[in-house]
């Protein structure tokens, strides 16, 4: 397939505005600004069928329509570059290798929704990305793509980078906004949604990096063209970061709906040392596990939901036959315990209990009843205040259900069967 999202990344100095312009960069923005009304842009994005790539899969055109309809001023356009989902590193590639595609996507979005100021909320762990983005932003100012009365129009837009400082929960859009306001990252109750009451309680569009990188393509080639790529009910190209026990870990661009099996075995080179594949988390640490029998599933939002898991960030985490599933689930739930903001009880206490019980099982000190308790804690966590707690139990509950034998082997054998000592 023709590379779309990754069309520039192999070029030398792809992060500079010269290279981006030479490849046709900022043409889509100029087209939007000069030939299209903001409503036209929203319609085109709606037509494309683009769904947000940050995890929730919300239709981008619809979000923009809501924001455009709100008349409170000023409005803010925020790019979510927090990329905190474990084993997700797709946005990093755009940020470091094609920052202008991101800026152009934001410009088009801000024009369509009437936003005056923009922020890129960048995770603190990406200092290299920060330098690249700041440089790219200053280049865009120099060329007149940012600032007041851009290219002689009435449209003005200022753009800044806001650095996070190490908190996964700040990827959740309302916690992100709290963090932009200088506070601890604790989610707000929804509704109101950020499009109506976000940063400083003003209308705020929050979109993921990858979502925005699609926008120039849609405007340049049309929403109809875009809607024909990949899965009909969830179209477009998708970036899949693949890691764990594959021969060629990396970010692969493939049409939405590509089979998980094809991504792992054809693109990522298969399993290291030609071992057997044991399990896959298909959509980051928050997704439910799939076994080796379940990997023919198409990678898109509806198909994975039907398979009882989720696309999430699209991060594919692969385990081979020598890896202990209990230990993997334990490590992931430890992550969530660390990142739980502590605001609500099901998540704060639930993650802690799951860590303690899994630690016991992994250490060979578990009892069979523990598995029941685990599943009931998982169920209770469904009632958490935000998406972190609602999904955090997935790697644990799903592995207990699908790899029960392995949990039982730990319990009955009194030790981890994968550990030599």
């Amino acid at each position, binding site marked *: 397939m023709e590379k779309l999202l990754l069309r520039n990344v192999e070029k030398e100095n792809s992060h500079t505005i010269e290279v981006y312009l030479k490849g046709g960069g900022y043409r889509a923005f100029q087209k939007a600004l000069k030939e299209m009304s903001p409503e036209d842009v929203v319609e085109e994005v709606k037509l494309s069928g683009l769904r947000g790539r940050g995890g929730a899969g919300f239709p981008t055109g619809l979000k923009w329509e809501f924001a455009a309809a709100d008349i409170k001023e000023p409005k803010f356009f925020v790019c979510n570059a927090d990329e905190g*989902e*474990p084993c997700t590193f797709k946005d990093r590639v755009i940020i470091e290798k094609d920052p202008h595609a991101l800026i152009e996507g934001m410009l088009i979005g801000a024009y369509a929704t009437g936003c005056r*100021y923009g922020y890129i909320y960048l995770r603190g762990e*990406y200092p290299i990305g920060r330098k690249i983005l700041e440089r790219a932003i200053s280049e865009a100012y120099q060329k007149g793509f940012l600032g007041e009365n851009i290219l002689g129009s009435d449209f003005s837009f200022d753009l800044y980078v*806001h*650095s996070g400082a190490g*908190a996964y929960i700040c990827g959740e859009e309302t916690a992100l906004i709290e963090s932009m306001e*200088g506070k*601890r990252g604790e989610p707000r109750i929804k509704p109101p949604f950020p499009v109506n009451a976000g940063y400083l309680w003003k209308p705020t569009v929050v979109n993921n990096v990858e979502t925005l990188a699609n926008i120039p393509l849609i405007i340049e080639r049309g929403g109809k063209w875009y809607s024909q790529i990949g899965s009909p009910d969830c179209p477009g190209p998708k970036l899949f970061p693949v890691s764990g026990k594959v021969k060629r870990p990396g970010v692969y661009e493939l049409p939405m709906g590509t089979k998980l099996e094809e991504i792992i075995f054809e693109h990522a080179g298969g399993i290291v040392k030609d071992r057997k594949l044991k399990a896959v988390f298909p959509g980051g640490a928050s997704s439910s596990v799939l076994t080796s029998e379940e990997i023919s599933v198409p990678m898109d939002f509806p198909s994975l939901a039907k398979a009882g898991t989720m696309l999430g960030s699209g991060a594919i985490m692969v385990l081979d036959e020598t890896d202990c599933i209990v230990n*993997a689930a334990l490590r992931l739930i430890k992550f969530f315990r660390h990142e739980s903001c502590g605001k609500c009880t099901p998540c704060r206490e639930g993650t802690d209990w799951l860590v303690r019980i899994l630690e016991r099982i992994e250490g060979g000190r578990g009892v069979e009843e523990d598995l029941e308790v685990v599943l009931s804690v998982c169920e209770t966590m469904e009632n958490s205040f935000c998406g972190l707690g609602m999904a955090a139990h997935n790697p644990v509950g799903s592995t207990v259900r699908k790899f029960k034998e392995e949990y039982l082997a730990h319990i009955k054998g009194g030790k981890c069967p994968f550990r030599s000592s």
Partner: protein
Amino acid sequence: MTYDEFREEVRKLKEEGKYPSLKSYTLPALWIAEKNFPCIDHEVMRIISSELGVPLVEVEEAARFYAMFHTERKGKYVIRVCTNLSCMLNGSYSLLEELERLLGVKVGETTKDGLFTLEEYECMGLCDGAPAITVNEERFLKVKKEELPTILKKFGWKGD
């Protein structure tokens, strides 16, 4: 950096006019402190609070909430070893143990000479290079245990 210089930096930050609300300068101000002081202490927090008109307790809450801010003294170089799934599957815990041994500290501690702080860290988005570690802003990918002394020496480690 002295406290007076820091106050000056926070004032300059405000003049940039990046945010329509002063409280949004809290994280940028904490970042300046993180980079220029061994730790974000109470005097630093008081300066931020008074310059931005944010209650001291809110500044302190923010400083303690985010994993990259140090409210305890840290070393000149912070070594972060990712132990999240892909790094764990590729051997990160043995890197962590080896670093503990080489530096003579436990995870979370700082070497006596004040050079290194060793941290176990969550995914840093470098999973295609697992196991990954960072030393301040520099990243090291697909790290092997044998390479650790060479990496440490780059930052002035005196051991062998």
